[in-house]
């Protein structure tokens, strides 16, 4: 019980800290926020339930007024910005990532984590993100999707990294990769 709670809390803090580190250059010299990488790791490391709760905790604190989103943003105003879908989608994306991870217990950790991160952290997250853009900007699905398509390559890189990092964690701290413990 204590472990679940502290792991959930520390992974929420990890999402926040990844957003605070100034520009992490991921690959090809593209500076992208590592925040959504944190969301993917919640799912791949902690599994569906705990990973989803960690991301939910993070989003709750952002809405309460802590400047934890990348760029020091936060507060209730996030709910009225066009990017609301991406923030609200964080817990669901983490949950779905963890859910996929738990469906592939036999696959190598790195591969399973990479695939899960792509399904949860890209497919599910963009679904909510595009829906938010459609609502807030009053545009159709195609127009809204066109606005975010430029970010997909960066997120594919993040999904691959989530796989590599989760595989590393499974070697470094196998007992803490809860998505692999039954």
């Amino acid at each position, binding site marked *: 019980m204590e472990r679940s709670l502290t792991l959930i809390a520390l992974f929420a803090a990890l999402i926040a800290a*990844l957003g*605070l580190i100034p520009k992490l250059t991921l690959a090809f010299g593209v500076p992208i926020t590592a925040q959504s990488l944190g969301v993917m790791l919640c799912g791949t490391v902690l599994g569906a339930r705990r990973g989803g709760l960690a991301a939910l905790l993070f989003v709750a604190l952002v809405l309460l007024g802590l400047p934890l989103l990348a760029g020091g943003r936060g507060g209730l105003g996030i709910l009225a910005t066009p990017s609301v879908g991406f923030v609200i989608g964080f817990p669901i994306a983490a949950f779905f990532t963890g859910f996929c991870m738990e469906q592939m217990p036999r696959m190598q950790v790195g591969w399973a984590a990479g695939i899960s991160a792509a399904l949860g952290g890209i497919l599910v997250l963009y679904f909510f993100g595009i829906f938010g853009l459609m609502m807030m900007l009053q545009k159709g699905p195609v127009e809204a999707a066109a606005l975010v398509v430029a970010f997909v390559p960066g997120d594919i890189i993040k999904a691959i990294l989530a796989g590599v*990092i989760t595989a590393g964690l499974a070697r470094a701290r196998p007992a803490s990769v809860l998505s692999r413990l039954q």
Partner: protein
Amino acid sequence: MISLTSPVETAAHRWPAGAKLGFLCGATVVLFAVQGMLLQAVFLFVLLGLYAAPGRQFLRVGMQRLWVLWPFVGLIAVWHLITWDIAVGVVIGLRMITAVGLANLVTMTTRLEDMMNVVRWLCAPLTWVGVKPERIALAMALVIRFTPVLSGKGKMLTLAWRARSAKRVGWRIVLPFAVLAIDDAEQIAEALRARGGL
């Protein structure tokens, strides 16, 4: 850690947080129901008045926080100039600025403790399904305490990287970063158990 609450004390700081949130919900519903350009402009004008009332510093910080919307405003402007649908574009833009500004106003005039009390009140029914609100409060406190700790450790990792490499700091520090977070979590869990557990 610094929260987004304004240090400039306003009368609204003393209003009950629940009432402010309730009003915000109601006002946002109205904003999205009203389609008239003139009314939306009036709303924005009133909002700017509210920002200006507590003084220059409050206004400046408030406007800085609204500035993040400019890419979206620019996007809407370009879009609706191309489709020649200007009236609709103006309404969407005005409404977005007012809605975000109003919500930011509540955040700027409500202390974190007051927000937490509202959360505690909202979470109270969860006791029926076996979730203890104290645990949620503890988890939130842990995040608030450990975000600066972790980000400090992240900065140490970037320094260590810079000391050893001429290349820019890359994704490779995320793995040790996550290991540090996991180790902290395990140690806090042990400390909680040693003190009688949850």
